[in-house]
């Protein structure tokens, strides 16, 4: 498979992917810093005060990007997990492993910033409505996937078990997304959608989308950095054929 004159299969081996990821990290980091900087400037200095919610609405500039990332990252993690199961490809499992902690962090942040927004606007930090509950379940899924991996000593089994868990859990993502439509929730509906014009001022939407793009770049940078750690950690373990005994391999796993 060659596209744009690059042999992409070359990068499907961890040894080739490790330096490639290393070269891409600075670019993604710089893009993340720039976009988040612009997004914050738009969010705090250009976007006007909301006529209903006052300045409390500005939490949207971290809340919505974090919540979107929590769902995006889950789907991407599950896709890598599925690819790993289908092709029995180690790098795919490593990508899934590297994405999980970042996804869990954004899910936690979505819940925390949501509580910070809920208190002044609804008068409650937390309510058990469909959107909030399904997002909380997503956090438990991420934690479950991470803990399941650490609880299985055999790497290949850990890869497959957490991949199956991730794939089954994907069903929760559309539930989170459509929860505000399927059920009568206290949580407000979608502010931005593909089909209708946004229900916010253009500057607010711009700030939110630029922040989201910044969070994407951050996620790329941090997961690529983490996948490099994962590759290095796994290579450290004695593998078959490198003059290692069964005993050594067993001890390392």
């Amino acid at each position, binding site marked *: 498979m060659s596209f744009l004159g690059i042999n992409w299969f070359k990068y499907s081996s961890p040894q080739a992917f490790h330096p490639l990821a290393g070269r891409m990290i600075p670019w993604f980091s710089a893009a993340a810093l720039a976009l988040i900087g612009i997004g914050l400037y738009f969010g*705090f*200095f*250009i976007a*006007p*005060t909301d006529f209903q919610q*006052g*300045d*409390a609405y*500005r*939490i949207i500039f*971290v*809340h919505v990007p*974090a919540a979107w990332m929590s769902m995006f990252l889950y789907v991407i993690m599950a896709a890598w997990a599925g690819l790993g199961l289908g092709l029995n490809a180690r790098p795919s499992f490593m990508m899934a492993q590297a994405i999980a*902690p*970042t996804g869990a*962090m954004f899910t*936690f*942040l979505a819940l*925390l*910033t949501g509580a*910070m*927004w809920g*208190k*002044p606007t609804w008068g409650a930090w937390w309510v058990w409505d469909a959107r909030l509950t399904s997002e909380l379940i997503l956090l438990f899924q991420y934690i479950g996937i991470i803990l399941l991996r650490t609880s299985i000593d055999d790497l290949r089994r850990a890869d497959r078990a957490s991949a199956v868990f991730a794939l089954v859990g994907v069903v929760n993502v559309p539930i989170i997304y459509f929860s505000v439509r399927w059920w009568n929730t206290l949580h407000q509906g979608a502010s931005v959608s593909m089909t209708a014009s946004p229900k916010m001022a253009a500057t607010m939407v711009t700030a939110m989308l630029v922040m989201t793009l910044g969070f994407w770049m*951050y996620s790329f940078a*941090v997961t690529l*950095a*983490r996948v*490099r*750690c994962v590759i*290095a*950690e796994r*290579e*450290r373990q004695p593998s078959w054929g490198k003059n290692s005994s069964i005993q050594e391999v067993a001890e390392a796993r």
Partner: protein
Amino acid sequence: MQWGSPTEFWAMGGYGLYVWTSFGATALCMVWEVLAVWRRHASAAAGSRDMS
């Protein structure tokens, strides 16, 4: 620009606590995650040098 003074900016129309907690927690988590990955990378790199 709707802020008359820095004090007004930090007050966020009375919602300062909620707004700054949200942004502060997000910043802290991101910085912490970057540092954690950095440290993990350092120890992983040190470990693979030991092997070779």
